[in-house]
């Protein structure tokens, strides 16, 4: 029998997933000057929808997780060389003052012309993937491969401690770069909502009609999503990503996931912190394993001698 056992129910996974969705926000912006051109971006996204499912074959499935863009601005600027006219003076005899022409310059700014279209309303992605849970041991004393392919992909810097690391190893993936059902559904819903709001300023009649419109938009989304659902179902059955994009996506995610564990446990693991000059008390962790079925995820480990 294992010395230590920790189990997390599927219901807790689902609640934690919802918590993650509600609180996860990614935003970033950058602007770089490349001489004549200025290029930049200003993006903010959050997660919506999607389900998580623990499955009997030691896999975790996340289905139809929507990436919603609150801001997806691409900034393109052009720095046109400055052109100036005028500015010279005509010397006049005394007492007539000199006549100076005004100097007028155009394209003095940097950039002179800038556009920043926001594609947030027109772009939405949907991701589904299945990954198997795997526990691996990271021995910090072993040399890393040279060159290390994980260098640009690590979210958390490489540790100097030995660690047990739990990975979610992707098996299949389905990416809809342009989630047309949602884009079309959103556009229809927004257009009809605006029209109804203009016609009926308020009251329960308007609320009722808006609710019906929301239902119709959801139906349109569901109908348009049927081909993608079939694609995801086939991927799940054959355990292979269909479509070139999905296949490439699986490879990329596989590579990314193999560099980024979802959970880390230091070995030895600190149970009493250093205090008043005393060294911390650490225990060696051995035989860590992780296993999921359709009810729970179980992590087991032994305490080393």
């Amino acid at each position, binding site marked *: *029998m*294992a*010395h*230590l*056992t*920790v*189990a*997390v*129910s599927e*219901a*807790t996974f689902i*609640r*934690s997933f919802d*918590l*993650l969705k*509600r*609180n*996860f926000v990614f935003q970033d912006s950058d602007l770089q000057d490349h001489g004549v051109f200025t290029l930049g971006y200003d993006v903010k996204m959050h997660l919506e929808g999607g389900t998580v499912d623990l499955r009997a074959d030691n896999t975790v499935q996340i289905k139809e997780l929507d990436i919603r863009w609150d801001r997806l601005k691409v900034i393109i600027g052009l720095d046109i060389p400055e052109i100036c006219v005028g500015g010279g003076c005509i010397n006049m005899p005394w007492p007539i003052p000199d006549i100076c022409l005004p100097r007028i310059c155009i394209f003095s700014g940097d950039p002179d012309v800038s556009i920043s279209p926001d594609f947030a309303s027109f772009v939405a992605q949907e991701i589904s993937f299945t990954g198997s849970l795997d526990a691996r041991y990271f021995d910090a004393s072993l040399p890393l491969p040279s060159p290390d392919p994980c260098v640009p992909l690590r979210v*958390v810097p490489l540790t100097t401690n030995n660690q047990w690391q739990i990975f979610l190893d992707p098996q299949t993936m389905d990416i809809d770069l342009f989630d047309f059902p949602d884009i079309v559904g959103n556009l229809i819903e927004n257009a009809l909502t605006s029209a109804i709001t203009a016609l009926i300023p308020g009251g329960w009649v308007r609320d009722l009609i808006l609710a019906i419109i929301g239902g119709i938009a959801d139906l349109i989304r569901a109908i348009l999503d049927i081909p993608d659902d079939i694609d995801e179902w086939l991927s799940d059955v054959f355990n292979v990503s269909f479509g070139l994009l999905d296949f490439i996506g699986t490879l990329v995610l596989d590579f990314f996931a193999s560099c980024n564990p979802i*959970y880390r446990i230091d070995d030895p693991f600190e*149970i*009493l912190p250093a205090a008043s*000059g*005393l*060294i*911390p*008390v*650490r*225990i*060696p962790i051995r035989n860590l394993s992780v296993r999921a079925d359709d*009810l*729970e995820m*179980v992590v087991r480990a*032994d*305490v*080393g*001698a």
Partner: protein
Amino acid sequence: MVFTDRSDLYAAVHEDGLNRVMRHIMLQRPSLFNYATPFFAQNPDLLCVPIKAAPEVFAAGNPLFTVQSPLPVLGAAQPVGLNYCVQFTDVQLDFHDSDTIKLPPELGELPPQRFALRLKGCFGLGCLPDDYYTDLIPLEELFAVAQAGKERFSFTHVAERQPRDPIVPPARRLTCFCLELFAVLHFEWGKIGTDDYLKVRLDGLEIVDLQPVEMENIIECYAEAVLRLGVLPRLSIKIEKMVLDITALLRQQGIAVGQQISLQPAPVPAAVPNNPAVEDDQLKVFVNLVVTP
């Protein structure tokens, strides 16, 4: 076998694992289990039981024992202290329902949902050899006569010791005896402040084969006070540290959570018959995840 059919989270530790943890603590924090006067820092070979410690303890220059003041010689006009040591060894835990530890008859059979503790406690005292008395007696006589007639001295009342450093004659050898202590304990949930903690409570304690009975009772009385007031309150573990600190986990991933996430013990008996449960040689805890807006 499903672990989480009655709670969101489940954690269990087997007695073999916990006994290994205990051994690691004893090796890496020997000062928690050994108490002695400063004299033994230079003379560790005189201790009742040699102290085993991990190489990291020596490398860091950590103390092998917690320093104690010498045992005062009562009534000495010039304070005199005796070197002594108290050492705890062979700490072992046994969760119901195996019988790794044979309890003494006074404690009976280990009841369900309880666990047994066995440890050996050794006490050593550096007795003064005769030649030390030869040197110390004239000194004490001098101090006693010097204090005679002073307001603070009388034959019916011994004045409190002056705040002078005591004379602590070095010990040449220690006279040691060891006692075996058995205890029956249980776990329970309880609040410390507003947080839930797993606490250890003492049910019974016995020191075997000590005569006269009154002396045994006095030593048991003191050991009980040390356990209840000194040791067990330090063993309380915060619930998040036991199972899974989800808030810390999300924070590590750079996600700030707006809601209050807390872990609470699954209710007894509505959800589980015992929580924490001590059974199958394991300590089991059943915990629910509570998210409040």
